């Protein structure tokens, strides 16, 4: 029971990070029907930006941790969003009217390019960060086994939930969200009622990248080590989460992220840690076979 509870806490934390990345996949898919395979690497770039900013801030004397983290969060969101915007502008917008597969291929190319850029500019070795947020609560103890809820876990879940609420409100309440949904349904008509479609799509990439930056900072603080390759696996897991939740659906991405995080954690805890990725990806296979539109997605109805 205690062991289960501990794994549940770990799983929810991991799931939050996956969920944040998955939103980027799902929003982009929703609006232009394309899988942005470079999104995982945008997340990776986000972790590096967060690390560099943090070290930079500490070296100029900002040592009050909450303030430093706040600044890191804002700076890395802005810079990573700029990366997301640039990737869209350079690699996807020129191909918007091209055949369907073209942006997918450039996305894979972009992913490789970002990985190699970081590998060359930052080195291939793992980059450590000492634990910044320490401490936590012992919520239960039995037979010498202590269930821990650390401060960093609380922070991750709280930030994730808060961002989820903010982004859901943007999508459902604001003019930007309305135009995003309009573009999703009929890009031509949206343009004819005065929506700047290109800008709306760019802003979607910007929002996705900003969330990936938050996920990046959380990842950095939680695990403490990053390298240029983390974006690949995290990205594919988040993509699995988006498909599981129903790609195109915002709550679906969050739910999918949670489920993937929980499956991975419990599988590692009760079966074998070597096969945790197999377990997560098996879910992708099963979902695609039995529930192609995902848990909360709308089935696509082809009109004849």
């Amino acid at each position: 029971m205690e062991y289960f509870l501990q794994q549940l806490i770990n799983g929810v934390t991991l799931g939050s990070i996956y969920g944040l990345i998955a939103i980027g996949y799902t929003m982009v898919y929703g609006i232009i029907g394309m899988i942005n395979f470079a999104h995982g690497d945008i997340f990776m770039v986000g972790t590096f930006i967060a690390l560099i900013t943090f070290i930079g801030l500490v070296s100029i004397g900002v040592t009050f941790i909450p303030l430093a983290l706040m600044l890191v969060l804002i700076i890395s969101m802005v810079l990573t969003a700029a990366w997301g915007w640039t990737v869209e502008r350079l690699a996807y917008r020129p191909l918007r009217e091209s055949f369907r597969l073209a942006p997918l291929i450039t996305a894979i190319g972009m992913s490789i390019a970002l990985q190699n850029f970081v590998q060359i500019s930052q080195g291939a070795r793992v980059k450590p960060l000492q634990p910044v947020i320490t401490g936590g609560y012992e919520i239960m103890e039995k037979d010498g086994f202590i269930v821990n809820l650390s401060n960093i876990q609380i922070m991750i879940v709280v930030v994730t939930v808060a961002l989820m609420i903010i982004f859901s409100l943007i999508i459902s309440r604001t003019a930007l969200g309305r135009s995003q949904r309009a573009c999703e349904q009929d890009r031509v008509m949206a343009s004819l009622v005065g929506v700047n479609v290109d800008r709306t799509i760019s802003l979607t990439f910007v929002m996705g990248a900003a969330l990936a930056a938050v996920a990046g900072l959380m990842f950095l603080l939680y695990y403490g080590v990053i390298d240029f390759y983390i974006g690949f696996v995290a990205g594919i897991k988040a993509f699995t989460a988006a498909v599981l939740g129903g790609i195109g659906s915002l709550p679906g991405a969050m739910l999918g992220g949670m489920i993937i995080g929980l499956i991975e954690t419990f599988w590692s805890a009760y079966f074998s840690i070597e096969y945790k990725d197999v377990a997560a990806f098996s879910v992708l296979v099963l979902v695609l076979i039995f529930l192609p539109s995902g848990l909360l997605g709308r089935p696509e109805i082809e009109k004849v």
Partner: protein
Amino acid sequence: MTPWDQEPLLKVEHLTMRFGGLVAINDLSFSAGRNDITAMIGPNGAGKTTVFNCITGFYKPTEGMITLTHEDGEKYYLERLDDHRIASETNVARTFQNIRLFGGMSVLENLLVAQHHKLMKASLFTVGGILGLNSYRLAEEEAIELSRFWLDKVGLESRADDTSADLPYGAQRRLEIARAMCSKPCLLCLDEPAAGLNPRETQELNELLLEIREEQKIAILLIEHDMGVVMGISDHIIVLDYGEKISDGTPEHVRNDPAVIAAYLGVEDDEVDQVEAEVAS
């Protein structure tokens, strides 16, 4: 000099649109008056919708010039602008032959999307919207009020929160017009608004269009096959055939134009003179 040529709202000059070897519109020139209902008629494939697509920026014309002059004298060259700028800056709105609503959004949201430009500005490109700025809230309220006004006009006030795809066909057509009107256009382009409507709905549509023209003081450009609508409400009719203008004038003039009769009844080219002679006599 006909009335619509004096200070026209829309002036199309030497418009030509080619798709590869196909000439969809050939050297078309016409004007639409500031507060007129101008109808564009012609057999299927005559190029009417293509003209609309050029005006609303959906196509870039091969040749020609489309000038829109606002009441304050500001001139816009529509062939040079992107379609979203034509909609948001020059205030040209349109509807489609096959209805194009945002089916998954509610009726009210459809009308709010049309006011996107104004709301984006008021919300400081969303930042203010998140912070709940007062100016944004006021703009949003204003937008909802305008939407309600038009819903009331087209008789859909009770269905504001329904998904627009669930509306019956006639109501979807009216909603499309309401959506176009919510962008406060100076030129409203309607592509076959009466298609698929029953006689009673067609009558209501006529009244609605006349009312819009009367109260909003805007110009309406209309493509229509239903002669009851065309002859009943238009001030000015342009007849196209094979991408060329064959007649231009008042309903009275067009009705008696031999070239129009020939195009509609379908005579051989060499018989046109004969038909003209017959009509003239």
